[in-house]
């Protein structure tokens, strides 16, 4: 039951993100953005979906038929399944609507943080297979770039995760969130972002790169690679990549909230309403993503790789060492 709810929520969040992205982009560029379809353009995503559904499904003649079909499925599946282990609220009855309190998490795994990481590493395959099976040079280059980029930033991503789990002494996301309950000095929330600012920054940067978002959106750098690995895709298979991208963003933001921003813990609201805090925090991070995309220029590809290996990874490694030392010697 909850699985279905989460599935629908994720689908609709992608739709919302499409709208938000367009609107925010327009705001940042002093434009109006979509306004014709529905009130203030609110039904624009629906129109997009309908358009995509009715477009013709194209497949290049020389493409590997099976893998060409498989790639978007892998992408979308990976995106959805990663969210399965992410908790997004404490036990709640939703204002008494339910008889028994319900845990807002599809499944609680005691190595959840690693599962997220494992599934993130699997999403490489969707991209790289899409690039290869299209049998097009733009796709192939986009796919190779994407996978190289994702593999590179996965290391920093993992190290940032590790520094948090060292502090929380738990691999379970719920455990990590609960470790952040309460306050320091009565008013500062015990969020890891305050003692792991470096880890947070590394995580956010690597997260952007993992989801192939601007300013790290090389796999689909339109000036160079047309549309990257999904150049040859159209209609619903294209929509699946699109969907995967937004769901990945949501997942990264939700995990960031759980790891660094105290999850559903926050002042003023009771525990059972924590999911409101959670939504607020995720929305803030998502807004930040969109804001970054429309503000920053794209890196050059070699700079991106150099940044990942020579700057981000050392910072993450030193941060992990420092965290471990802090835990060991000062009992943080």
């Amino acid at each position, binding site marked *: 039951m909850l699985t279905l709810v989460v599935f629908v929520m994720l689908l609709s969040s992608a739709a919302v993100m499409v709208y938000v992205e367009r609107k925010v982009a327009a705001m940042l560029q002093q434009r109006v953005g979509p306004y014709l379809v529905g009130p203030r353009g609110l039904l624009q995503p629906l129109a997009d979906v309908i358009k995509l559904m009715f477009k013709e499904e194209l497949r290049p003649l020389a493409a*590997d038929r099976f893998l060409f079909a498989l790639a978007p499925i892998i992408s979308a599946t990976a995106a959805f399944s990663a969210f399965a282990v992410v908790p997004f609220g404490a036990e709640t009855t939703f204002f008494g609507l339910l008889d028994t309190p319900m845990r807002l998490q599809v499944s609680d795994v005691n190595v959840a943080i690693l*599962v997220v990481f*494992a599934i993130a590493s699997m999403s490489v*395959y969707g991209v*790289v297979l899409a690039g*290869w099976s299209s049998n097009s040079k733009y796709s192939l280059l986009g796919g190779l770039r994407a*996978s190289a980029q994702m*593999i590179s930033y996965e290391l920093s991503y993992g190290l940032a995760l590790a520094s948090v789990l060292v502090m929380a002494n738990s691999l379970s996301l719920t455990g990590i969130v609960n470790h952040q309950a309460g306050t320091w000095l009565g008013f500062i929330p015990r969020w890891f972002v305050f003692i792991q600012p470096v880890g947070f920054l590394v995580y956010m940067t690597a997260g952007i790169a993992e989801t192939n978002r601007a300013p790290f959106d090389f796999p689909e750098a339109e000036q160079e690679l047309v549309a990257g690995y999904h150049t040859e895709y159209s209609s619903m298979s294209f929509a699946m990549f699109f969907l995967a991208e937004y769901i990945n963003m949501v997942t990264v933001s939700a995990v960031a909230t759980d790891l660094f921003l105290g999850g559903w813990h926050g002042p003023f609201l009771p525990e059972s309403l924590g999911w409101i805090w959670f939504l607020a925090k995720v929305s803030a991070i998502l807004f930040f993503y969109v804001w970054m995309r429309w503000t920053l220029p794209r890196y050059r590809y070699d700079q991106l790789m150099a940044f990942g290996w020579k700057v981000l990874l050392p910072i993450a490694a030193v941060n992990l060492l420092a965290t471990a030392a802090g835990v060991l010697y000062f009992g943080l």
Partner: protein
Amino acid sequence: MGSDLLFYIFGAVAVGASLAVIGQRNPIYSVLLLILSFGALSGLYILLDAPFVAVIQIIVYAGAIMVLFLFVVMLLNAPHEETDYDERVHPLLRAGPTRFGVVLAIGLIAELWWALTKGRETGPFGDGSVSSVAAIGRSLFTEYSFQFEVTSVLILVAMVGAVVLARREPKSEGRP
């Protein structure tokens, strides 16, 4: 118990996928099938109360090593196996020995089967939990710390070796 059946499902997937790996002529499919096989093994690890190994199996094998294979396959872009034979090769290398290898494999599996059935019944698994990540970590960094450090050196050596081996050689006009 559902998990009993799961063992057979995962085992069948692992064996089937592995057979398909070596039955494939297209290395891309070989790689993907191997990933499937690893996924099934990962499921078996969960059944064996080792979720940490299961996740690491996915992260390391499927997420890193197999991507490397996929890269190389794509990079070399020589997907299909050559079927033509060089007749000048050593007599030991003609088709006969290859079949001999298969015979050997069958012999080996017969031997292993025999060995396993000959031995006494092992009985069911114990009830003790071995899934604690903390226990694994403690053991890894105390009892096995030397081996751990040695593997880090191994990784470093492999990294340097891979970089040196795969480095593009200097252009030929630069040479005398």
